[in-house]
């Protein structure tokens, strides 16, 4: 504590009050102590219940996705080889219907790749700038800008993609569809950029000061220090940030539902319209599909695939970051 004057309302006064109350209790009826003990146990139990709730949520997600996916594969017109081995996703009008998940995965990957081409370099460079170069004044304006960008709802980015990015793209090149993967990808990239930046900056900040000072002492410029020393030292944290951003892009829904189109096709042409896994789920939810048809259950199979992909990315990302934490503490 800095001075006796600033004690009011801080921890020390609280502790002193508490001490007096505990003291009074000890002198009082010993039965009140057993009441306190019972209350402690009760509260602890409640807290444990709350803690277990998060496990329950995971269990519920897994249960719902697995059981409904199994229901999906029970239908006659669905086979696992078609689901995993085909690039034709035509669950609504096709005759026979085709459920080749690769068409949706392909669309998702195309959008994600475009998004990452934007988000990863921009995010990393901004992080390096914020952590190593930027004067305090710049930091204090850039940080809120990033926070606002991170807080903008995704539906707004979808609107931006459809109404601003797409017309600009079409103006630059005639070949772009009104719905296209590039426009959605750029918007998703803008969305992921603050995430990459703040996670990567955390990683850069965690690099011990001594490393930087040693590098400066050897005559390194700021570029040498940040690019050749700090970034490699923070590499696992940066990779983890990248992975989490990719997971976020894969799971992004509203932007692709608005701007990427609704034609599932396995294409690598960024001017075409594509449908992502999330886009298909939105189409199912928004349309009037009977609740008990194959295409309704295909939504669960797609959700399960999406869940597996994002979960793998997040888990690897967190694992990499944890490894990194151990190295410097």
């Amino acid at each position, binding site marked *: 504590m800095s001075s006796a004057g600033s004690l009011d309302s801080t921890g020390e006064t609280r502790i002193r009050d508490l001490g007096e109350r505990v003291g009074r209790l000890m002198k009082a009826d010993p039965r009140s102590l057993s009441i306190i003990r019972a209350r402690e146990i009760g509260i602890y139990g409640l807290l444990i219940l709350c803690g277990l*709730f*998060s496990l329950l*949520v995971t269990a519920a*997600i897994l249960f719902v996705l697995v059981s409904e996916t199994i229901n999906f594969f029970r239908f006659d017109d669905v086979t696992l080889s078609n689901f995993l081995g085909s690039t034709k996703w035509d669950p609504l009008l096709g005759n026979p219907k085709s459920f080749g998940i690769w068409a949706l995965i392909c669309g998702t990957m195309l959008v994600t790749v475009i998004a990452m081409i934007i988000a990863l370099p921009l995010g990393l460079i901004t992080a390096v700038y914020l952590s190593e170069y930027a004067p305090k004044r710049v930091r204090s304006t850039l940080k809120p800008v990033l926070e606002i960008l991170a807080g903008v709802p995704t539906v707004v980015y979808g609107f931006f993609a459809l109404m601003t990015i797409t017309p600009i793209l079409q103006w630059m090149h005639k070949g772009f569809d009104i719905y296209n993967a590039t426009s959605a990808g750029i918007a998703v990239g803008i969305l992921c950029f603050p995430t990459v930046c703040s996670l990567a900056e955390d990683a850069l900040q965690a690099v011990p000061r001594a490393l930087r000072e040693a590098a400066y002492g050897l005559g390194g410029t700021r570029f040498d220090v940040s690019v050749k020393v700090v970034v490699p030292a923070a590499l696992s944290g940066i990779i983890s940030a990248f992975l989490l951003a990719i997971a976020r892009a894969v799971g992004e829904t509203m932007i692709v539902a*608005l701007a990427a189109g609704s034609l599932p096709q396995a294409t690598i042409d960024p001017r075409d319209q594509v449908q992502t896994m999330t886009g298909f789920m939105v189409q199912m939810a928004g349309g009037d599909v009977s609740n008990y048809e194959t295409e309704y259950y295909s939504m669960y199979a797609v959700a399960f695939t*999406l869940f597996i992909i994002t979960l793998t990315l997040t888990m690897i990302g967190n694992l990499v970051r944890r490894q990194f934490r151990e190295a410097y503490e």
Partner: protein
Amino acid sequence: MSERSPIDNATIRDGKSRVNLDERFKWLCIGVATFSVLILVGLLTSILVQGLPNLSWTLLTGVPEPDAKEAGIRPAIFGTLWVCSICALVTLPIGIATAILLEEYRPKNAVGRFLYSVIQLNITNLAGVPSVVYGILGLTAFVNMFGFFQADRDGGHPEIGVTYYDQFFSEGERAILVRVDNANSPPTQLTPDTAAMDVDFRPVTVVLLKPTDALPAEEDREYAILDDAEPGRINKKAWYYFSLPFGRGVLTGALTLMLVVLPVIIISAQESLRAVPASLRAGALGLGATPWQVVWNVTLPSAIPGIMTGSILAMSRAIGETAPILIIAGIVYISRTPQNLMDSFTVMPLQIYNWISKPQEEFRGIAAAGIILLLGILLSFNAVAVLIRQKLQKPLS
């Protein structure tokens, strides 16, 4: 000549080029940073340009109409208010309690520590689950309740706070209500002693007419009904109306959003609790306080500003969240504000999405105006969070 030192063989790079490189990189950084500011400016400008001309009182107070000029967002504003307040009421206690458990009640044995690491890992992974997947979970777990109450549908699913009436129309064009037991009771057969009511639930005596009877005089027609009149089934729901399964109602929306923001709240509350100096806890424990007394009197009050900031930011995420609500509610036409927990609803981002995806061009402008309202709410939330962070957070050590 003496031996040549290795330094003579080494190529010494020109210092100037390295300094130049540094300078160029600095400008690249500044360019990128400016670019990110420009993106924000571009985003806001494009929305303001399209939205401001459409921002009107009608938009704020009206209901979604097929005509863009008369369309309003009031049901969606109230929907957001309902869903997010219930979401906050449910999520904050559970989230903060979980954070307290993880940070303040650290286990001492190996089994406990393993369980804790499982819960912790689980929470970090839940934070990475796409929100649309939570929508799917909400659809199965809350809307349909795994189909548990589906078989019961014929006899009416469990519900309280609702009364069903059969509605007849008298010869004098008056509505007459007769109370029935439940949604699937057989249609009422009118008899002279049927307990009939008018629309304000005042008892009335009906005059039954046979089809062969002559019509009574004009002034007596009010409660005169043909005895074979066909009723229509209507219901009146109280504000506490509750039914299972939850259906596509406000409660489902709130619980689904709870799943989305719970990991966010837990993680931010944990960070705030972790920032409380350990000496405070040690001091309180040393005075003989129980673990909960330490948490309630010392740790929690110190961490409250941080927890509040995190919670406000999490709630602003809940306000902007569209995908899970879209999955559970679908695209429906909602023209009134929710009246009870089971009432169908729409939220602001969903209404905006609805407008953007309409084929008519003029709805895009309305959507942009809606976005301005939404962003206004979110930015004021963020401003409050920043204010709390600056005003209340005093360093404790």
